[in-house]
Each structure stands twice: as structure tokens, then as C-alpha cells.
């Protein structure tokens, strides 16, 4: 699992999702935060890549509470034009104080059918 280090005394941690353009693939996603050593999750954001809204959410504060938690991006997606544009990219990124802390990434081939992706990032205070 991708591990990302953050400053427990720094500013808010922001998670952002990036998807291939909606003309190539349509995505519906849920961003979740899982408690330390548990499968209990809270939903940070549910959204899609077809609107102009930013696909990002702030993690809970105080920031130090996020140590050991896992950020999960669950995506259902479909290729709009999989024959011409067969590739997709999904990126889950973490930011703090204007810096990118790290990211998890999945790329693959669009099938023209419904597809499912799960990206995990483990947060570690440093």
C-alpha cells in the first residue's frame, strides 16, 4: 500500500482525485477515510468527473488524528469511446500546505463496459 508522510503539526490535508477527461471516460467516485486499524469508514466526498466542481476534500482535523488512517478512492467508470481512446488514468493525490505529499495511481485499458477501481493511501505522521 502506498504510504504518504504528513506533518501532524501542519495545515489541513486535502485529498484530490483526477480522472481521464469525461469525453473519454465517465467516472462516479466515493472518497473515504478509514479509521486506524479498522474497516470503519467515513465518506469524505461522492462525486463525478463530468462537472466543473473540484474533486477534492479536506481530511478531518486536528491533522494528527489521521496518522495510520487510509484514504480510499472507489471509482465506477465506463469508457465513452474505448475504441479510439482506450486508456484511462485515475490518480488519488494528497496535499498539505501547498505541497503534494504523494499519490496513488491506476491506469489501464477501457473495455466499454462498467469498470471498478480502488486506490488506497496510508497516512503516516512524521
Amino acid at each position: 500500500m502506498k504510504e504518504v508522510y504528513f506533518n501532524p503539526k501542519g495545515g489541513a490535508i486535502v485529498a484530490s482525485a483526477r480522472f481521464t477527461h469525461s469525453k473519454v471516460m465517465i467516472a462516479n467516485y466515493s472518497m473515504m477515510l478509514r479509521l486506524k486499524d479498522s474497516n470503519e469508514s467515513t465518506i469524505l466526498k461522492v462525486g463525478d468527473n463530468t462537472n466543473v466542481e473540484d474533486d477534492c476534500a479536506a481530511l478531518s482535523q486536528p491533522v494528527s488524528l489521521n496518522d495510520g488512517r487510509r484514504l480510499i478512492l472507489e471509482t465506477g467508470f465506463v469508457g465513452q469511446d474505448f475504441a479510439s481512446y482506450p486508456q484511462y488514468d485515475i490518480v488519488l493525490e494528497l496535499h498539505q500546505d501547498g505541497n503534494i505529499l504523494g499519490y496513488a495511481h491506476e491506469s489501464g485499458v477501457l473495455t466499454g463496459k462498467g469498470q471498478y477501481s480502488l486506490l488506497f493511501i496510508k497516512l503516516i505522521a512524521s
Partner: protein
Amino acid sequence: MLGMLRLNFVVPDMPAFKAMGTDPSAILRPSTAQAFAVSVSEFYQNGQFALPTDFAMELTPSLLLNATRPIENVIRSYSKAQWLKTFRVSIGTAANRAPHLGRSMAIGLRSNLINKGDMTTDKAYLQNVVMALGDFRMASRKALATFAHQHGIDTNKVDYEFRIMSNPVLKTKFDDLLFDMEAQRVFMAKLDSLKQDYKLRNWNAQKLDVAFAVVGSGGDSLLKNVQLNKYAFWMTWALRAGKSGQVLLGINAEARRDNFVVKKQNEFYTTVSLPLRYMSGSNRLKGYAELQYQYVGIERSHYSFLSLGAEVNPYDGFWVSMYGGINHNYTNAGTSFVTNLNLKITLPESFKLF
């Protein structure tokens, strides 16, 4: 367009075909760009079926070239101008009406300046797909838990999903399961129904096309000593008229040589046409009435052309267009009856190009 994106709205008229003058109506039918399309005409002549002597094909470079480009470049290209994405090139050839000129060959260029019938940017369509994907995502999550049980993975263990998604063998198995599960069938049925509904509602969406073509004639079948003898320009504006109607307003201007009178062969004459067409029906079957005014400079004559026609899509990727009408010459008081049958072929929606 291709794959899911490819909607078989009618195959558009091709400038290279129109410019050769095989079609009495001067309207250049606008439509969504197709990666590849073919048009043939003149199957029925003098009471007999014959091999077509006139044909043309049209390619959309952006749709063909983008197929193998990295995804980042494709995204970048999408943000560029509409006219460039829908820019098309057509090439046509026809037996010349003046036998001493052999065959004619034409090259046409066209583009959509306005194309409201683009499913990939339609907000209502996208939102419906997003909702269906939400259901699919939840169903996939449940399927993942079931899959874990089936493969002896304890779902009480922390992040059990990661064990599956990060294991290439298990991930492939799970993807295969998703590919065929009931929720997938439900999702695909929903997607298909949204697509059909979109076509039904948008075959008559607003479009504005411009096109240009140049025609050359050669003295023999190899097109040696080609002489450029016609330049043509079209602009056609298609407007939605109610739920199942469409109005086409067109202009066509041509400059062509007089190839029949030897001493005038270097002179160009202008022809201007102003067609107006009303269409009614559905995407796959439409009827239409058309009225056209035309000034033919070479004859210094004014014409009107009144016609009735239909467009039929009996099979995916195959279109038949036919019309009959009365062409009246006001200057010389002559009337003729004109018919036209045109077959247009493009890649079926289900066809995978690459």
C-alpha cells in the same frame, strides 16, 4: 464517432461528391463527423440498374489519428477548436458529362462550426450515466466482499479489499467477475437505453457546417493533364423544429468553367443556390420537402427545384437517401423531373476500429 461515442446519425453529404454535380439538390446535409464514410450514386439509369459511376469517401483525420495517441494528448486535443476536431477530407470521382473530359475528380474539405448533437458533452446524458455508475459502483463493492469470501479472504481483516486489488491474479479474476455479473448487464442495458434515447431526441439538434471543394477533370482515365474547372463553397445551418422536425438553410456558390464551348474554356461562371429543406421523422426514417432557388451563370438562367424525399437507415451504418422533384427554368420556361438515389455507408456503431 467511434465505439460508444459513435452515433449513427445520418452520414453527411460529402463536398467532393456534391461538387461533381451528380446531385441536383445543392444542400450539403450537415451531420456528426464519421471516422470513415462512403457515398455512391446513380444505380438506376435509363430504366436499368447499373454499376455506380460516381462515388466518394470521406475521412475525419482527428478521429483516425487520435486512436493511437497517448491519452494526455487526446485530452489536450479535446480542448482545442471544434472546427479542427470535425475537419473532414473527402475524395470523389465521377464519369464526366462532357465525354471529352474523361473522369472528374474532386477534393472536399468540411467542418462543423456548431454541433449540438454531441452526446459526450450533453449534461443530462452524462448525469444519467453517472447515476447508473453509482449503482454499478455499489454493486461492485458488494461483489468484492462476496469474491473475498469465495477466495478464503477474511472480510473482517483490515483493508481486505487491498489484498485483492493489489494481487494481479485475484484482480484479474475479480475483473472477469465484474465483466459478466448481473449488475454489469443492468448497467449496459441502461447505457444502451440512454444512448437510444439520446439519438431519438437529438438527430435534429442544431448544426452549422461549412465546406469547400475543388474539381478537376482529366483527358483520360489516369487523370493526366488535370484541369481545375470548378470551385464550390457551402454553408448549411440545421435548426431544430419541434420534437421531430428539422429545418436546413443552405447556401452554395460555385465558380466553374464552360467545358463545352472550346473558345470559352478559360472563363469561369458563377452558380448560386439557396436551398431550404424541412425534415420530419425520427433518426432512422425521415421524410422531407425542399425548395431551392438557383441562378446558373453560364446560362444566365433562374431555376426553382421543388422536391420530396426520404432518408432511411435500414441497417446500422447503412443509409439510403432518395428524392424526386421538379426543376423549373424560369428564364427559358422549361421543366424537368429529376430523381436521385444515394447510398451512404459508414462504420457500424458496434465496429471496433482499433
